[in-house]
């Protein structure tokens, strides 16, 4: 076994890390969160495109980097460390994967070009009220109308939905899920921006007879959606590694500097052991995250192992990751429950990642089913 990154991967991770450190500190995220607007910057999105990060998982023939989920994971891990707010997970991972897996070559070329150029933000509208994590139980419908399709229904908490130029929308057609591309400015599309726990923004969407630009049907949509959720879950865990890493680091630093009762509080054994428990959970999270991104692209015979690894990883995020987040607040004491301190921003991002792409109960159940064979 070899867990080392290749030279290319090391370089990619370092470039993202340097960018995050120099150009997108937590302070930048906080300013954008507090300001009106999209909550991120189009100029930075463009810059990310120029650096090639938006092309990572896409085929070289389409102008992509031809990378894997491992590469996507290391970008997100570094972005997570300073809470970079650009919609990488929403556009590149979620919408990008749906297009990549369900679109024909021509459709991919048309839809991905403006994304890879950093000229567009894309969003995947899959979640519905009362549908929890089952991506194939849809009340949104698509109806054939002449040469095209007409979409009706509502989608909730669409990540980056407030900013996206185009949506990939899941909708039921003849009892099966289908995937459709709808332009945000099409007639019959209504969007309302919603605030999210992590200080980012999304949208609730209503499609009232909106015409789809195209249907993506190079692969069965149900299977594509299932795989996209896995890819997103693996990516969320990878970002979670960065988020938890940052919380663990700032907590250990705080224990080493904060003085009470005439001593560094890190000299108290009870708190040392707590920090060790956090560290242990961190290492477990890192390990299982590697398996998750390593198996995320598998299909066919590799699918069961993919799902098991991703569920195990998402479970570790929901247990060990949550432990790290909650203890990070606890060990910071009063300052930890203020909005002014950064630790709370990470805490909230982690909880958003926990609620997305299957929660603890979802993944425990799926893992149990997979074990049953």
């Amino acid at each position, binding site marked *: 076994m070899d867990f080392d990154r290749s030279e290319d991967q090391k370089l990619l991770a370092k470039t993202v890390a340097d960018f995050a450190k120099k150009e997108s500190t937590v302070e930048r995220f906080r300013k954008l969160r507090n300001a009106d607007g999209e909550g991120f910057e189009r100029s930075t999105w463009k810059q990310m495109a120029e650096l090639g990060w938006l092309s990572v998982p896409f085929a070289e023939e389409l102008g992509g980097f031809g990378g894997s989920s491992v590469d996507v994971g290391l970008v997100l891990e570094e972005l997570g460390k300073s809470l970079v707010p650009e919609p990488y997970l929403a556009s590149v991972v979620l919408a990008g994967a749906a297009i990549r897996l369900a679109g024909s070559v021509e459709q991919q070329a048309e839809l991905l070009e403006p994304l890879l150029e950093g000229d567009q933000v894309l969003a995947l509208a899959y*979640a519905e009220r*009362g*549908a*929890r*994590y*089952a991506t194939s*139980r849809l009340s949104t419908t698509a109806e054939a109308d002449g040469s095209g399709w007409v979409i009706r229904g509502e989608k*909730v*908490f669409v990540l980056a939905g407030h900013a996206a130029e185009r949506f990939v929308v899941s909708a039921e057609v003849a009892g099966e899920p289908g995937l459709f591309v709808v332009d945000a400015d099409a007639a019959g599309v209504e969007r*309302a921006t*919603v*605030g*999210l*726990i*992590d*200080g980012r923004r*999304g949208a*609730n969407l209503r499609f009232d007879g909106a015409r789809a630009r195209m249907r993506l049907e190079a692969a069965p949509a149900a299977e594509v959606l299932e795989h996209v959720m896995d890819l997103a879950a693996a990516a969320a865990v990878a970002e979670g590694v960065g988020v938890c890493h940052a919380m663990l680091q700032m907590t250990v630093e705080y224990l080493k500097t904060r*003085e*009470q*009762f*005439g001593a560094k509080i890190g000299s108290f*054994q*009870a*708190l040392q052991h707590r920090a060790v428990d956090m560290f242990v959970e961190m290492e477990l999270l890192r390990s299982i995250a590697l398996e998750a991104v390593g198996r995320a692209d598998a299909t066919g015979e590799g699918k069961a192992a993919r799902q098991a690894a991703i569920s195990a990883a998402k479970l570790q995020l929901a247990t060990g990751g949550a432990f790290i987040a*909650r203890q990070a*607040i*606890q060990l910071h*004491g*009063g300052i*930890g*429950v*203020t*909005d*002014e301190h950064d630790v*709370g921003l990470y*805490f*909230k991002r982690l*909880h*958003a990642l926990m*609620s*997305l792409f299957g*929660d*603890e*109960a*979802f993944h425990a*159940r799926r893992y149990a089913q997979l074990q049953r064979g």
Partner: protein
Amino acid sequence: MDLAFTAAEEEFRLKVRSWIAEAMPPHIADKARDGRHFGMEEVMEWHRILDGQGWAAPHWPEEHGGPGFTATQRFIFQEETEAAGAPGLSPFGLVMVGPLIQRFGTDAQKARFLPKILAGEEVWCQGYSEPNAGSDLAALRTEAIDAGDHFVVTGQKTWTTYAQYADWIFCLVRTSTEGKKQAGISFLLIDLKTPGVEVKPFQTLGNTPAFCDTYFEGAKVPKENLLGPLNGGWTLAKALLGHERTLVSAVGATARTLATARRIASGQVGDDGRPLLEDAHWEGRIARLEARLQAHRMTVYRALAEQQKGKHPGPESSILKLVGSELVQRADELCMELMGHDALSWHNPEGVVPPYEQNVGPQFAYNRATTIYAGSNEIQKNIIAKLILGMPKA
């Protein structure tokens, strides 16, 4: 042993319950039903309604305008108001400084402050913690210098909860640097309108402005505002901390959150299309917490029964704080999990999530403070280890 409340106590419970149902104005009742956040105006409105019934200060003795409740009646009263989702009254005057003034104040101080606290005419806040004095409270440095007929106060207090709405602040200040650090602390009552006092609110993790920093720059405080003896403030502080701990058993609040959990679990549909409440996993998750809450409730009742016999709450009250605060958080966490994607919602306009889910996220985030404030849970464990288990010193 008798597990039942007496008939008189049960009657009292029903009386409180029906009075609340009648007395609560509709706009407050609407919010109460869904566990929504109350603004300070609503809190004070409810304060005045309770005061009209003589119930604003259930734990005050009759001579100071209290209703003369027994310890058990007080608990029943608290449980019923919390279960009804009534606004929690600001505790700083009624629960904290009021009883201290009754016990340590001069007749003039009693006459000056107590009636206005009771009537809700003056709102108080607490000035204890400082940036470098949290768990180690005795390390506080805000100083009060003797200047004849007044003190000159300079320093910074933090976590002065709701100071932006308060008229007065009670403060622990340093009046001497001699001897043990606990021995040079005094207890001062300070009018927030005093020149040189400035209050700056800041946001919590719940993105609600609950806390403040309060700054003192040479604020002149008359000597008659010293409560208790000079350099005797630590005794008052300790008396108050024990009190705070029984307050945060939060039995009623957790019961309400778990009732909210049941509503969320009825409204949210699982991947199989059925309400979560019909799913053994989620039903079991809720039941486990309800059962633990029952064990906690009985622990509170045992402490109450002891108090009823005239015993003062001892270090055992640390258990109530420890378990109570953790239950608050676990109930919030469960609600967040039950909500699925709705747990992403943050301070959105009505309609984005059902009304009973509206405040869950901010409450979950804000309540991370419960294991930190009123003596962090680490400090409570130190107290239990030392005073109950008699553990040797390191």
